[in-house]
């Protein structure tokens, strides 16, 4: 085929393709518009692709239908080619001379003249397709859709911007934590956050269309109004407590989102004692010093300086004086875990034998405006008092103490003075007898007080000599000046007591050295004389007697008591001889000494045993019964718990109903009185808000119901009766009982 013929064929095919495309394109447009209207952009895209592919395929197929024969036919329509166009396509070898001649002519004409073999545009048919298609497309696109007429869930009258509701274009929440926390200010990734208490928050909201007003509505009814600033809306506040908020634009919530800001309160610092490792340390003067080390930790930082509070306790018994002083320590290490150390010289601070030095570290964190304070546990440095001779244990505490009724020294004096007044009225015999009786009382009292000294006043073995001189009665100082005994039971810390029981090795010397809390009544000092079997237990054993019955007296008290006994002895002697007037001075002196002893120390008297006299049933309820009678019992008052949480819990368990809103409102009123920082309150508020926004949401109901469970108070359970049997069952049961009974 010559090049001219190829060009002709290609032209014809192009015309055919153009016709197909011009008819197909409007149809594809119509289909795409239909797809858009019915299904949205994605189906429209698919429809457009498919229809365009179909048109393209049709165009190619139609163009291919124009083949050589069709071309020959179209060429033959031109008279100049004289119906001989097929000669152009025949193989030259098969042609006769005449045919070759004719072919030559045709080729000349073809080269000389441009014959149009393209089909004409089918204008009428094209218009019949294209115009209705375009009209339909326009109709499809412009047909009013039902969705635009349906009122969207928008408030009926939003001022200013009817139709175009402002939507959030950008929202930035900038948080500046308090400076002391050391946290950098930053833009938060979301509108919800968990921040240190006291952080400054700054919102910047941008909207697509400028709204009239924007506020942040808080869960408790409060609101933060945003100020317009250029194209954005800004507000600042300080976070003091946890809260939930919604963005409210022009009086209506922007969306369903409930944002949550949780305020994390600053924790007070924690102080730990690193050294010493026990709270009570025994001081030995040979030690180099007393090293104290503390570690203080805090979530944001501990102040560099801490106060070491030192308390020196001197004295014993009830005569203890305190001296306080404060040292400032500088800490080392990171701010969140600082260490404080100091080595003290206790003796330089005034520590003496028998006194305690109590140390406590006070640290502050760096919270603004008021820092929080924390104190460490106290550590006690104790210099044990020198070995002291203790008074003898009271034998009576071991023996069975019988109730003894004896007169007091004052009563004896009163009796003696009364006797003296009656001297004239009484016969000599009677006078002597009564004086003797008072003397017996005086003896009983002497023996009783003598028990405090281990019966030594009645010829009992003498105690071993003690370090101190026992002063005579005359040399005794006033009671105020008497040093008081040490009473370790009164102020010893508990760990020492436990330590004693752990190593109860009966090492009394060690105990005495350790000066521990247990009363041993000075056993080492109560070694009796030969043959004193009663003291064997006290000597070799370990008598854990009653704390209240245990007695221990220091030497001064013993001396005073001994002097009192001496005076009593003298008084007794005179009374027995019938000279109460001579006995009185001794008795007064004895009273004075006893008062001194009472003021100087506490004396623990052996408690009388708990044996009560037996009840005589014959006498029981045999007395007068006036005023006795039946009495009604008052009902026990009880305050029922708040019913609102329970009511809401039960309402949520049933199907959604009309009463839900009222119950929910009552519960929110109750909830608003709860502390917002308490556990679970914010979750509850959020759950309530969510349910309010979407009352149909079943899972929201269940979530709120689950959160309510911890608020429910377990009521006292009543009894659950068993189900009554049916009449037939009852008859069967009765028959069974009759059979059994038979």
């Amino acid at each position, binding site marked *: 085929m010559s090049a001219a013929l190829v060009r002709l064929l290609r032209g014809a095919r192009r015309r055919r393709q153009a016709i197909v495309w011009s008819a197909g394109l409007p149809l594809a447009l119509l289909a795409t518009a239909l797809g858009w209207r019915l299904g949205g952009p994605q189906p429209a895209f698919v429809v457009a692709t498919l229809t365009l592919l179909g048109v393209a395929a049709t165009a190619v197929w139609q163009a291919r239908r124009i083949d050589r024969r069709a071309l020959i036919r179209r060429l033959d329509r031109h008279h100049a080619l004289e119906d001989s166009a097929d000669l152009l396509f025949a193989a030259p070898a098969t042609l006769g001379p005449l045919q070759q001649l004719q072919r030559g002519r045709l080729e000349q004409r073809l080269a000389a003249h441009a014959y149009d073999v393209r089909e004409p545009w089918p204008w009428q048919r094209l218009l019949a397709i294209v115009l209705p298609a375009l009209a339909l497309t326009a109709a499809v696109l412009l047909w009013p859709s039902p969705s635009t007429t349906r009122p969207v869930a928008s408030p009926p009258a939003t001022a200013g911007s009817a139709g175009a509701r402002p939507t959030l274009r950008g929202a930035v929440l900038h948080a500046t934590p308090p400076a002391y926390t050391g946290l950098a200010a930053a833009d938060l990734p979301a509108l919800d956050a968990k921040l240190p208490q006291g952080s400054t928050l700054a919102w910047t909201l941008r909207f697509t269309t400028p709204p009239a007003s924007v506020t942040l509505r808080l869960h408790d009814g409060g609101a933060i109004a945003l100020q317009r600033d250029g194209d954005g809306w800004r507000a600042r506040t300080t976070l003091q407590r946890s809260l939930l908020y919604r963005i409210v634009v022009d009086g209506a919530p922007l969306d369903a989102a409930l944002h949550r800001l949780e305020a994390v309160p600053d924790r007070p610092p924690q102080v730990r004692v690193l050294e010493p490792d026990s709270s009570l340390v025994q001081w030995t003067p040979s030690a180099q010093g007393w090293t104290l080390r503390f570690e203080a930790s805090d979530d944001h930082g501990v102040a560099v300086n801490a106060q070491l509070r030192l308390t020196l306790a001197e004295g014993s018994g009830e005569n203890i004086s305190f001296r306080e002083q404060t040292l400032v320590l500088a800490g080392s290490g990171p701010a969140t875990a600082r260490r404080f150390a100091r080595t003290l010289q206790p003796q330089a601070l005034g520590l003496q034998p028998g006194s305690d030095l109590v140390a406590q570290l006070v640290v502050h964190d760096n919270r603004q405006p008021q820092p929080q304070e924390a104190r460490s546990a106290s550590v006690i440095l104790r210099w044990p008092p020198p070995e002291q001779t203790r008074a003898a244990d009271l034998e009576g505490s071991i023996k069975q103490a019988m109730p003894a009724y004896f007169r007091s020294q004052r009563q004896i004096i009163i009796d003696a003075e009364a006797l003296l007044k009656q001297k004239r009225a009484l016969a000599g015999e009677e006078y002597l007898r009564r004086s003797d009786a008072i003397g017996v009382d005086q003896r009983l009292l002497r023996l009783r007080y003598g028990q405090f000294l281990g019966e030594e006043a009645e010829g009992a073995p003498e105690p071993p000599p003690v370090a101190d001189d026992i002063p005579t009665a005359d040399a005794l100082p006033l009671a105020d000046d008497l040093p008081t005994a040490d009473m370790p039971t009164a102020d010893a810390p508990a760990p020492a007591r436990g330590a004693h029981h752990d190593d109860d090795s009966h090492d009394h010397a060690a105990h005495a050295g350790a000066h521990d809390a247990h009363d041993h009544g000075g056993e080492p000092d109560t070694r009796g004389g030969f043959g004193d079997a009663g003291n064997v237990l006290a000597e070799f054993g370990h008598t854990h007697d009653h704390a209240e019955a245990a007695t221990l007296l220091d030497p001064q008290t013993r001396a005073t008591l001994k002097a009192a006994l001496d005076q009593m002895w003298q008084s007794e002697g005179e009374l027995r001889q019938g000279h109460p007037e001579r006995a009185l001075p001794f008795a007064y002196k004895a009273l004075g000494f006893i008062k001194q002893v009472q003021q100087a120390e506490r004396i623990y008297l052996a408690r009388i045993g708990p044996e009560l006299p037996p009840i005589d049933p014959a006498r029981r*309820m045999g007395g007068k019964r006036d005023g006795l009678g039946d*009495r009604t*019992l008052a*009902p026990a008052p009880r305050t029922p718990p708040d019913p609102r949480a329970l009511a809401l*819990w039960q309402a949520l368990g049933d199907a959604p109903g009309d009463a839900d809103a009222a119950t929910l409102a009552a519960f929110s009123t109750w909830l608003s009185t709860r502390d917002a920082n308490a556990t679970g309150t914010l979750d509850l508020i959020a759950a309530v808000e969510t349910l309010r926004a979407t009352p149909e949401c079943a899972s929201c109901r269940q979530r709120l119901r689950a959160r309510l469970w911890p608020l429910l108070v377990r009521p*006292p359970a009543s*009894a659950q*009766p*068993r189900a009554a049997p049916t009449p037939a069952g009852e008859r069967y049961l*009765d028959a069974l009982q009759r059979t059994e009974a038979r």
Partner: protein
Amino acid sequence: MTTALLLAGLLALGAMLALWRLRHAPARGSRKAALLLLQPLCAGLLYLALMPPSRPGDAGTLVVATAGSDAAALAAAAGDAVVALPEAPPLPGIARVPDLGTALRRHPGSRALRIVGDGLPARDRDTAAGLPLAFAAPAEHAGLAELSPPPLLVPGAAFQVAGRVSGIADARVELRDPSGARVDLQPVGRDGRFALHGASRAAGETLFELRVADGAGRERDHVDVPVVSMAAPAQRVLLLGGAPQPEWKYLRRWAEDAGLQVQARIAVGGGVQLGDADVRLDAASLDQLDLLIVDERALTALSRTQRDALAAAVERGLGMLVRLGGPLDGGQRATLAALGLAMRGDDGSAPLRLTAALDPAPADNAAAGSQAPPWPALQQRALHPQDVALPVLARDAAGDAYAWWRAQGRGRIGLTTLVDSYRLVLEGHGGDHAALWSALASPLVRAQPRTVTVAAPAWRGERTTLCAPGKRIDLRAPDGGSVALLRDDAGCAALWPRHAGWYRWHADDGRSGMLFVRDPQQALHANAMRAATLALVRGATPTAAASHPQPGPRWPWWLAFVLAAGCSWWLERRRPTEPR
């Protein structure tokens, strides 16, 4: 049978008529004889075609593939035919049947069933009952194997969730309340059994969650435990004390707080009484009561008339609880023996522990936030009833009984040896004190008609029966839709629940009830199915073989009838060639 007789009679009549009509048939000799002979033969063959003779059914053993069966197990199961139930996994080459009944119809005469897989679903168990069953039970699925949910409770009552875990080593179970907080944590026993304790809080239905964790602490199974509590109907209680004791004080306070109508009369000696003055112990006032709590001293102090009235009132349904407050003397023992509660024992005081002595997992307990103080050790009288078969009212932590009851007429008499439960209140366990006395009183209180029924939990998609008396009931599915029920005379109906969750019904007479439906995608369901099938196997009574004779094939008889009828037609139609 009557149909067969009627058919036989009709056919015999037809044959007779034919014979009568053919008696003058123009045929000769042997042809006529054959023609006449063919008529009853046709009738007989027609009868046999319509009523084919039954053959002794003997299709052998039918192998049934159920859920969880696999090809290997099926290959190992000997049988004559194999079918697969809808629950079975896809098994190539095995016929599917919609249920077991269909399978038995398609394989008539099956003499025995061999079950492969987890077991038969509830739908097919009734069908399989009565057939000899073979079930090679697979190992239990790891997880919960048994679970007994608590019954209907009163608000505040304590409950126990017992069950069994299988296939998990060192398993621990924990109970979580609806808010997700842990209530109890226990290791399972050697046999996999456990018992967890919780308490209800308010009237209504809720779901606790039971979780099973293995030794490494990973969660292996969890299941919802339905807990329903409803306020109990009003009850009247009388407390009769022989001496003022703290126990009475707190018992009275419990009864008042729990909403019972309480009367109390406590003797303080010398004829002086504390409490309500108008307490009378005659038949009329005792019949008003629901429960009488009395101690041994007050019981002995009653007059003979009062005691007789009391015994008669118990016969009529009154509940009575005797609490022992001190050592018994001879008269008191005799009084108790007259009530059928003769006691033996040295009557000393013995400690009573109501919670486990040692915490099984202290570390975890601490993590559980058990801030509650530990229970105090209480005291009981060391007494036991002479009748060892008395039902037990309460047990301590070690499982030893300390309270018993016996039925007398329609009423019940209980006895507790617990002396000082008031110490629970003093040490901060007021709710547990109430729950303890609720548990002691509940079995004894006069029976009352129930208005709320809680059905046993069912499985979604599985048949369950629901008994809801009342003329018209309204059953609501969890999705809010109404479910129609076809009920029998007793008010029971079958139900195939389609949703998991709470089904609630309300009757027009004020009664109501609920049913919790679980999702069957759990180990508990598979294990329950396995256990039910095993019970079916054990309980199966193999009836006589070939219990259902099967109809034989009809086609040979039809063929013979058609041949005979054709023969008859041919003989009758063929005319003699020679003219008459």
